[in-house]
């Protein structure tokens, strides 16, 4: 290793017209939105809804959340995942990006599919990357699913987390009249501080 990493800096309060322009109704385009699945995508349609809270429990209205996940067969749409036994889904890239500044309650919403199990022994999960003003380095967490209790109990990453904090990583499933919704709130600090990972 010869070169040193370029330092990270906050995304700042004004990322919206650079990174999430269409969501915020700016004239520019954006590469990824919260609409991660289309009519052709294979898998169970789910909606992910949540809010981000600061150390005083206040909703954060200028956070940006990115999701990265496997498809319904558990395959990542990336050359490093070359497992032919799990088919790629041409209708699913697996990446989404949403800011919390366009809903009255500062919630984020993703419309996606529930990922398959990506590797034996794991529970299904979605990688979450969080950015905001006041956050000098993006933070990585994971979203697991409340209806996968038996797989969650065996998941090696969940088992690295102290038991009392595991709940912060579990999105709760609700069957609603408009489809399956998972609730996933993110707490930056406080008694329910979300577990963030280093890898």
């Amino acid at each position, binding site marked *: *290793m*010869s*070169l*040193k*990493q*370029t*330092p*990270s*800096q906050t*995304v*700042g*309060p*004004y*990322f919206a*017209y*650079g*990174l999430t*322009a269409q969501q*915020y109704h*700016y*004239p*520019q*385009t954006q*590469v*990824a939105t919260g609409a991660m699945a289309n009519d052709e995508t294979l898998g169970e349609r789910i909606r992910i809804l949540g809010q981000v809270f*600061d*150390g*005083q429990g206040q909703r*954060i209205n*200028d956070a940006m959340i990115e999701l*990265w996940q496997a498809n319904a067969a558990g395959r*990542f749409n*990336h*050359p*490093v*995942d*070359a*497992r*032919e*036994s799990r088919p790629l889904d041409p209708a699913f890239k697996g*990446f989404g990006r949403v800011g919390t500044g366009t809903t009255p309650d500062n919630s984020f919403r993703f419309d996606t599919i529930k990922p398959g199990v*990506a*590797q034996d022994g794991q529970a299904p999960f979605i*990688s979450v990357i969080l950015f905001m*003003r*006041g*956050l*000098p*380095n*993006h*933070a*990585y967490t994971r979203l697991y699913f409340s209806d996968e209790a038996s797989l969650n109990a065996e998941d090696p990453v969940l088992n690295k987390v102290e038991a009392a904090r595991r709940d912060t990583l579990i999105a709760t499933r609700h069957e609603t009249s408009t489809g399956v919704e998972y609730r996933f709130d993110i707490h*930056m*600090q406080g008694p329910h*501080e979300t*577990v*963030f*990972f*280093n*890898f």
Partner: protein
Amino acid sequence: MSTLTKRDWASHAAYISPEYKSTVLRGVSRNLVDIDPELSELTGPAYGAEVLGPLDHDLTKNGQVNGEPQGERIVVSGRVLDENGNPVANTLVEVWQANAAGRYVHKADQHDAPLDPNFLGSGRCLTDANGCYRFYTIKPGAYPWGNHPNAWRPNHIHFSLFGASIASRLVTQMYFPGDPLLALDPIYLSVPQGARERMIADFSIDVTEEGFALGYIFDIVLRGVNATPMED
């Protein structure tokens, strides 16, 4: 199967850097949980030429309505490398910034400086096979912010990059050489000395385009991700 270098925390700010006030209630306060990278961390989204519009790399043109934007034209170029010095090819570079007067198009920016009807201030480009990128823009102005009395952000351009996987994801800011506000800026200063200087671009007469735009070089180093494909 792979090597993934860790985030080099000596090169990054502490999550809670009290001089930068909004970190106090927003920064991660408990220890990060160390995990071994798996396929989910060694993969990530790839965007290519399909997301590039013809003017996305030229912020001096992509917001024009009825004329040229105000301010000093500049060209910013550089290489995106990993820690081993290998070029990060075909990776997306997204940028956004204030206009020459220090005003963002963003609706929440209430700074009493003029908007420029011919400047939007965001764009994107792709690195080539050698990891090189280049875009044209207007030198952004400094702007005040509420962190402390008489606080001003130095001139800067926001950058967002993906690299090889979600592990190499980076959002940073590029600063300009010789800016007196750097020594007073808690966001810049939150990064340890010795590392923060890597965020300052170099002026380059070679990149400068005669009669048109001053040139700056900003090289970016992402975490090293060296993964061999996983097969069945």
